[in-house]
């Protein structure tokens, strides 16, 4: 099953404020992606 296409295009920001589509995060190969509840 592939990541939902719309989800793959949703954006996150790096710490410099640059936007990245989610799919960019795994473009270099298999990636473990961890969504934290928050940063506390």
């Amino acid at each position, binding site marked *: 099953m592939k990541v939902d296409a719309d989800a793959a295009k*949703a954006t996150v920001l790096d710490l410099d404020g640059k936007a990245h589509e989610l799919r960019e995060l795994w473009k270099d190969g298999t990636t473990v992606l961890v969504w934290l509840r928050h940063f506390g």
Partner: protein
Amino acid sequence: MFCREQAVQLHRELPAIRKKGAGLVFIGNGNANFAKGFKDEFEIEAPVYVDSRRKTYEALGFSRSPFSFISVGATKAAARALGAGFRQGLTQGDAFQLGGVLVVDGKGEVLFRHASQHAGDHPPVKDVLAAL
């Protein structure tokens, strides 16, 4: 506390993850300053991203509930995390948002998915590594 526990546990496995040719990234729903503080405090070498509007959480079906930390499971998870020495810091993001873990290959195929059902509901690290 739960976020710290999960981040530290998975980050400890970064060498093993890299040995398998994979990467590790964290995404949180606070702002960039929160993320920078988090990265510095826990010496997180892996990339950290911010989704303040929680759009990716929503798109991937990660739940948000004011009752996420009021459950037997959350209570057990709190005891586990406290027993491991983790303490609750200031909430830096949406306290009601639950997280999750995906392992995705380079073509976008989902190799592993875990959506937290309550606060502290993290997948066993060995299960994440087994998906690589």
